[in-house]
Structure formats: structure tokens, C-alpha cells
């Protein structure tokens, strides 16, 4: 008995040593421009050769640890919820087997200029503090998951970069060059796709019936309907800001198919054409979470389809409120 325990212990030590030898550790602290620790910063290390990714979120005191990760060269990136901090990218960070490498990150200030009340990350943290989310399975309705509830529309924490056609790349460059001053939202027009497009301070309320899913969102535009009564898309829909959506169940996943967009809206900062076809695959893995995998397919703007992965959180203590864009002062927007 004692002998087998010793053998087991040796085996465990052996495995640990092997793991240590085969991989390295990347660790550090993430701070803001003034040196304050940044909590819940999503850090990603992408292996330049294999494309494999290791991910972690910083703790309340800004610490992170990625381990063990195979020896190699990595691109390190952090993308905070827009726009309190600039995204961080450091390419070609070498990590040797058994090495413990320290990489501290100081995030630069983002385009929101630290304006009071305008940091979605700060808001999300404040909202999370006052929620009591039960740990239980997702509710069901007519044999299918029920998505009803008020959701914090978080952004993709590890955003993918679309492959833009030349005209779209040029449009993007222009937008970035003038600090996004022509974003539809600056004129109180709907912000993005899929609506609600993971927007800073806004929430989405889903109301589900067997044949219809209604999404109420606070931002301009206000609502979406996903028809689940078997109707097809219209033959030639008038292009609109929110398009025409139909939903079909694939097991416990709702597949929402949307066409009929105008070409005025932005997907975040990216342009698109009227050929845009959006597919949202929605799951509610448990009571408190909604996982949405979005595919953007637009041969008029992207050379290949691309994706967003959204992880929304239930906010049982909140509700959507009126938001009428009544006092815009866009005259101050000059760009640079």
C-alpha cells in the first residue's frame, strides 16, 4: 500500500517535472496609464507557429499567469471593452521550456478619454456586484431553452480580424483616420450589427414565445424580432438597419438567420454591403449565461466569413430603460 503510494507520488512528481520542462510560464501585471491595476483584462498568447492560443483574465490586482505553455514565439494581446484603454499587442515574445517570463503591461488610454461614466468595463463590474444569479440549468419553454431575461451585451473578448476587400480596407482606414467621427451612432442612428451590437452601457432584454423571440434593447433602433413560426425571408426585403431575422432550433441551439440589411450600419468599425448575411448561433448553457457565435458573411465586403464569440451575462436585478437620443451635440465632432 505504502509502496504503491510512493510510486504514485513519484509518478505525479515526474509528470510535474515533465510539464515544467515541456512548457514555460508567462506572468505579469496589467495596469492602466497611471499604474492602477486593471482587473478582468483578457490576455491572450497566440503561438506564432501553431496558432494555438492560451488565455487568462487578470485578477482583481491585475495579475495574470499563463502556464504551462509550449516553448515558442508568441503574440501577446489584450483587448479591453471599448474604449477606456487602447488594445495592447506585443509580437514575437519568446518563451523557453521551463522559463518563467515576466511581461508587465501598461495599457494606454483609449478614445473615451476616461470620461466619467463611459467605461463599459467599470459599468459591467458595478452591475455584476449587485446580481444574484442562481446556479441552475437554463429554464425551458415548449421543450426548448428559454432565452428570456435581461442580458449584459458584452463584447467579444478575443476579437477576430475580418479579411476586408480593398474598398472596405480603405473605408476602415478613413474611419480610423478621423477618430470614427462619422459612425452612425454619432448621429443617433443605430449602432451596429447584430443589434444590439455588444454596446457599452446598454443591455438587451429577450422575451421568448414558442413562435417569436423579441429582443428589446436600449440603444437607438429599439427592438428586433426573430420569427420562429416557419416563415421564410421575404423575396426582396427593403434594406433596413436591423434586417429580417428567422430562427430555427438545432437541438438546444437557436440558429438565427438575418438578411436584408442596408449598407449604412457599421459592424463595430467595419463596413459591409447589402449582401451581408448574419448567422447567430445562440445557446444558454446555464441559467446565467448566453453564448452567441456570430458569423458575418458578406462577399461584398469580406473575402471570407468571420466570427464574433459573445458571452452575455444575466442581470436579474436590472431592466432595460428608455433611451431617446434627444440632446446630441455632434457639432463638436471634428475628427482630429
Amino acid at each position, binding site marked *: 500500500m505504502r509502496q504503491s503510494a510512493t510510486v504514485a507520488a513519484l509518478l505525479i512528481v515526474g509528470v510535474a517535472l515533465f510539464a515544467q520542462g515541456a512548457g514555460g510560464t508567462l506572468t505579469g501585471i496589467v495596469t*492602466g496609464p*497611471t499604474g*492602477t491595476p486593471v482587473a478582468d483584462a483578457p490576455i491572450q498568447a497566440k503561438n506564432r507557429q501553431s496558432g494555438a492560443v492560451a488565455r487568462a483574465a487578470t485578477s482583481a490586482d491585475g495579475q495574470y499567469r499563463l502556464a504551462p505553455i509550449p516553448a515558442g514565439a508568441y503574440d501577446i494581446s489584450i*483587448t479591453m471593452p*471599448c*474604449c477606456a484603454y*487602447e*488594445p495592447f499587442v506585443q509580437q514575437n515574445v519568446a518563451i523557453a521550456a521551463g522559463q518563467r517570463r515576466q511581461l508587465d503591461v501598461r495599457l494606454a488610454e483609449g*478614445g*473615451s*478619454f*476616461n*470620461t*466619467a*461614466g*463611459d467605461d463599459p468595463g*467599470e*459599468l459591467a463590474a*458595478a*452591475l455584476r456586484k449587485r446580481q444574484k444569479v442562481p446556479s441552475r440549468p437554463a429554464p425551458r419553454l415548449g421543450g426548448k431553452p428559454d432565452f428570456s431575461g435581461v442580458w449584459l451585451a458584452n*463584447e467579444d473578448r478575443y*476579437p477576430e*480580424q*475580418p479579411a*476586408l476587400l480593398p474598398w472596405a*480596407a*480603405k473605408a*476602415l*482606414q478613413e474611419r*480610423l483616420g*478621423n*477618430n*470614427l*467621427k462619422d*459612425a452612425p*451612432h*454619432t448621429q443617433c442612428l443605430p449602432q451596429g450589427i447584430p443589434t444590439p*451590437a*455588444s*454596446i*457599452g*452601457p446598454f443591455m438587451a432584454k429577450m422575451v421568448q414565445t414558442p413562435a417569436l423571440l423579441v429582443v428589446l434593447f*436600449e440603444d437607438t433602433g429599439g427592438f428586433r424580432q426573430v420569427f420562429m413560426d416557419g416563415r421564410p425571408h421575404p423575396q426582396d426585403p427593403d434594406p433596413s438597419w436591423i434586417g429580417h431575422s428567422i430562427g430555427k432550433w438545432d437541438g438546444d441551439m437557436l440558429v438565427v438567420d438575418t438578411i436584408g440589411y442596408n449598407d449604412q450600419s457599421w*459592424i*463595430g*468599425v467595419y463596413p459591409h454591403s447589402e449582401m451581408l448575411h448574419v448567422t447567430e448561433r445562440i445557446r444558454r448553457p446555464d441559467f446565467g449565461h448566453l453564448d452567441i457565435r456570430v458569423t458575418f458573411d458578406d462577399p461584398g465586403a469580406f473575402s471570407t466569413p468571420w466570427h*464574433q464569440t459573445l458571452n452575455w451575462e444575466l442581470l436579474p436585478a436590472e431592466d432595460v*430603460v428608455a*433611451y*431617446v*437620443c*434627444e*440632446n446630441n*451635440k455632434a*457639432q*463638436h*465632432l*471634428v*475628427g*482630429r
Partner: protein
Amino acid sequence: MRLRFAAAALAAFIYAAAPGYAHHSFAAEFDGDKPIKLAGTVTKVEWTQPHAWIYIDAMDESGRRVNWGWELGSPTSLVRLGWTRNLLKVGTSVTFEGSRARDGSNTANARSVTLNATGQKLLGASSQGPTP
């Protein structure tokens, strides 16, 4: 050409970071290189979407009274962070910090708001909370 493409690709990578963004880019409106700090008295509160505005009367260098507008986040967001529309009443003595508008008008974004009576920072980095 290659260089330009590389620059575009880099920009795209960086801003892939921003699938959503604030109501509008504050960077298009305010100049981060023009910081400003002003003490004054609240003259008006616009508790309106898409952004709350608070106006104060402050003295310029020549002792002349000038009215300044300060832009904050949306009331929706401010309320969820614990503010109310009555937090700063007309007549309250406050100090704002932020960045001046690019268009040269007497406006700025509000990075922080401090109550002059108590020195309490109401919002902004390392604020002590919204309760005055």
C-alpha cells in the same frame, strides 16, 4: 504599397479590438493633449441622452466669468454607477478635470468631478463613489 497594406492590416488588427464603442469617439471631439482643470459653480444640468452635460461658471485668467460645458457618459450608465440627476444641483461648487474640445468651444469631457466643499471625488479614476 506593401507598406500601406501592412499599415492597414495593423490598424484593422488593433481596431478589431473595438466591435462596439462608446456613443461617439470622444477622441473625435476632445484633444487629449489639452488637459483642463476648472473650479466653478454649477449653472445647469442636462440629464439627457446620449450624454449628460453639466455647465459651470468659472473665472478665466483675466477674472472674467465664463460658462463651461462638461460632457459625461449617458445618464443610463451614470445611474447604474450610482449617480442621480439631483447629485449636482445648480449652485454647487465643484472642480472638473478633463480635455478641451478640438473645436475651441468652451467645452470639455469630464474625467473627474470633485465637490469643493468636502474634496470628495464623485466620479472618475479612484473616485470615492457618487454619494456626496
